[in-house]
């Protein structure tokens, strides 16, 4: 990416571990375009000795010392037309996410001049292992599990998976099952939270043993100016790579150009949907539309551009198949007034420019929100990372939009989603792992969560349900001071408490672990780096949370508990001072939270502070 890593304070010249080139990130996605400059293996040695994977190549796909392995899975039926039976990415998504996590440094990257800069992944020296599980009709559970089965055994360090379905029980969900076995093997799975926001309880990947990543903005916004014949200029959101050369074109309102021969009236043609516009009236003109569409209706009618209106997305720009800009409704109304008043109205749409978004980072509207739909007292998503208008490498087999009528084949493309934020977190996790190769997946998850930049709830009304612990901060995550570690046995206790039976759990763990009064752990005692409790509106509730932290900071250190408790929350920590005499030493404490639910959500925090490290955890009370 050309901006997001710098935006989060993670410059190219950051201190790197000598172990970085031994790190392998497993990308479970739509494949990869191995010829992209982002996957050039110049300067790379052979794969690390721990690598046990393969390159499931064919005549048209080969790995190199950057993309060290690749497999593809299509367990059912034939590969569809236009798709490639190999790990090669015909969609673009997998190439984009892989280059975000671990793409090499490529200067002068851009999308046809837009978002120009030096593109790079979080770990330019890391290796990539590709597991192609997604095809044009989706990503099957059978293939997702097959990829996990291989990736874990192949020896990857981190698994990145930007895919989801709908809320399911932990052992009915291929992603949760795969992530559980990854965790057992010390491999952190980074998951996209989902794009079903801002609806409450819409987070789709929420197992406590995986990292769930929301999507937020960076300080770069793309605007495309609309210039009218009367000199007025409006700024709309879009990624417009087309250059109309400042030429003014006649402009017409879609509502006044219905394709009557096909039965359309103005009330539908105003939306400019496919087939609704009268070609004779629209051809060679810019068309004003009352909805944002990909532009196929306008282009089919011969329009040279489209000015669209949208009252929904305020911080997200998209690409269209013709020159386009998406204006706010009030600006659209102004332009319609100009159309109605001018005798020969004209307009043009300028190529996109970058402006600084002073409100960033803010969680984007589509990012899935908590609370956790299955285990309400585990906070999800865990954190947020850049997922809006991210430039990264693209497949040579797909166009900018992937829609018919788009002939722009590009090396780099700009797209948005929690799919884009997830590989940022995967890269950050791999960065932490490169400094601490022996850390468990939960230690890495804890490091990422407790060092996250706090976010502003005034700019994010859903607060922790939008951003979890906050915005990822990779540099700080390498030195978190303390970690809330957990492992398989902790999750067995948690699952016992959740009602899973001994027989089931013995099979999952492969040992004789059993649920008993001793092992039945409450959800509040899972050693999680955040604290959540829920009750009914208007009621008061008191919960105690048992936690243990491990010293990974200074050998001799004293941490004091700093509590932030807003109205409605009473928080006590016992003991409130933790002293450590050695690295790896563990200390336990109890957090007691009394919440009076006078509103739907109240959040505070606990910070363990030794003057050098601030180990921050959100404390969230919410109404069920």
């Amino acid at each position, binding site marked *: 990416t050309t901006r997001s890593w710098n935006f989060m304070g993670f410059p190219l010249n950051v201190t790197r571990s000598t172990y970085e080139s031994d790190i392998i990130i497993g990308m479970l996605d739509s494949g990869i375009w191995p010829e992209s400059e982002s996957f050039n293996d110049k300067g790379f040695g052979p794969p690390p000795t721990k690598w046990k994977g393969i390159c499931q190549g064919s005549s048209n796909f080969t790995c190199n010392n950057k993309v060290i392995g690749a497999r593809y899975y299509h367990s059912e039926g034939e590969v569809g037309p236009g798709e490639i039976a190999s790990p090669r990415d015909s969609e673009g*998504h997998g190439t984009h996410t892989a280059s975000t996590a671990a793409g090499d440094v490529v200067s002068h990257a851009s999308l046809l001049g837009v978002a120009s800069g030096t593109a790079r992944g979080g770990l330019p020296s890391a290796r990539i292992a590709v597991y192609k599980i997604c095809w044009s009709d989706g990503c099957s559970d*059978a293939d997702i599990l097959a990829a*996990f089965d291989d990736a874990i055994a192949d020896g990857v360090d981190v698994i990145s998976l930007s895919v989801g*379905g709908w809320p399911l029980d932990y052992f009915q969900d*291929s992603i949760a099952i795969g992530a559980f076995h990854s965790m057992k093997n010390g491999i952190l799975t980074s998951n996209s939270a989902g794009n079903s926001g801002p609806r409450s309880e819409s987070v789709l990947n929420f197992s406590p043993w995986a990292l769930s990543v929301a999507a937020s903005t960076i300080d770069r916004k793309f605007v495309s100016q609309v210039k009218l014949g009367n000199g007025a200029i409006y700024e709309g959101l879009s990624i417009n790579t087309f250059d109309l050369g400042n030429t003014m074109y006649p402009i017409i309102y879609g509502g006044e150009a219905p394709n009557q021969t096909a039965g359309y009236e103005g009330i539908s043609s105003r939306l400019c949907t496919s087939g609704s516009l009268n070609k004779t009236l629209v051809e060679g003109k810019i068309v004003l539309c009352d909805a944002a569409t990909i532009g196929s209706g306008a282009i089919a009618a011969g329009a040279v551009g489209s000015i669209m209106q949208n009252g929904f997305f305020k911080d997200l720009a998209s690409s269209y198949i013709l020159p386009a800009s998406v204006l706010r409704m009030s600006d659209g109304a102004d332009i319609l007034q100009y159309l109605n008043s001018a005798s020969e109205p004209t307009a043009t749409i300028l190529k996109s420019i970058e402006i600084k978004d002073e409100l960033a980072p803010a969680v984007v509207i589509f990012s899935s929100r908590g609370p956790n739909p299955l285990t309400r007292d585990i906070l999800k998503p865990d954190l947020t990372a850049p997922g809006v208008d991210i430039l990264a490498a693209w497949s040579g087999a797909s166009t900018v939009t992937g829609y018919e009528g788009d002939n722009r084949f590009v090396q780099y493309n700009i797209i948005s989603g929690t799919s884009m934020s*997830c590989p940022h977190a995967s890269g950050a996790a791999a960065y932490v792992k490169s400094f601490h190769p022996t850390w468990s997946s939960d230690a890495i998850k804890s490091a990422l969560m407790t060092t996250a930049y706090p976010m502003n709830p005034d700019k994010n009304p859903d607060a922790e349900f939008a951003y979890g612990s906050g915005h990822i901060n990779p540099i700080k995550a390498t030195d978190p001071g303390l970690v809330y570690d957990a492992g398989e046995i902790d999750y067995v206790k948690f699952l016992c408490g959740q009602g899973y039976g001994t027989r089931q759990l013995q099979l999952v763990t*492969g040992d004789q672990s059993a649920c008993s009064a001793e092992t039945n752990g409450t959800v509040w005692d899972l050693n999680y780096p955040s604290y959540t409790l829920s009750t009914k509106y208007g009621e008061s509730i008191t919960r105690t949370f048992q936690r243990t932290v491990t010293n990974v900071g200074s050998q001799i250190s004293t941490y004091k508990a700093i509590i932030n408790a807003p109205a409605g929350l009473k928080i006590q920590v016992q003991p409130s001072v933790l002293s450590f005499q050695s690295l790896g030493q563990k200390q336990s404490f109890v957090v007691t939270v009394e919440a009076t639910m006078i509103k739907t959500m109240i959040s505070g925090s606990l910070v363990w502070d030794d003057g050098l490290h601030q180990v921050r955890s959100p404390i969230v009370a919410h109404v069920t």
Partner: protein
Amino acid sequence: HGTPETDRKTFIVYMGDRPKGDFSATAFHTSMLQEVVGSGASDFLVHSYHRSFNGFVAKLTEEEKQKLEGMEGVVSVFPSEKKKLH
């Protein structure tokens, strides 16, 4: 088997951790499947998981799925559906 192909759906039979030591997954899974579908079980076995955990993918009827759910060693049986890129 007298069951139309259209009545069979793809299910994942999740069996937890990978057994220790040598483990012939395909033979083991085919044998399990044979107990519920009878002869020709290998025709309905789509994939065996064996490298990191234990389980298999099979084409099953609803009745066969229910039988497998009650078998020793099975954690869960659920349909293989399609998830989406985010």
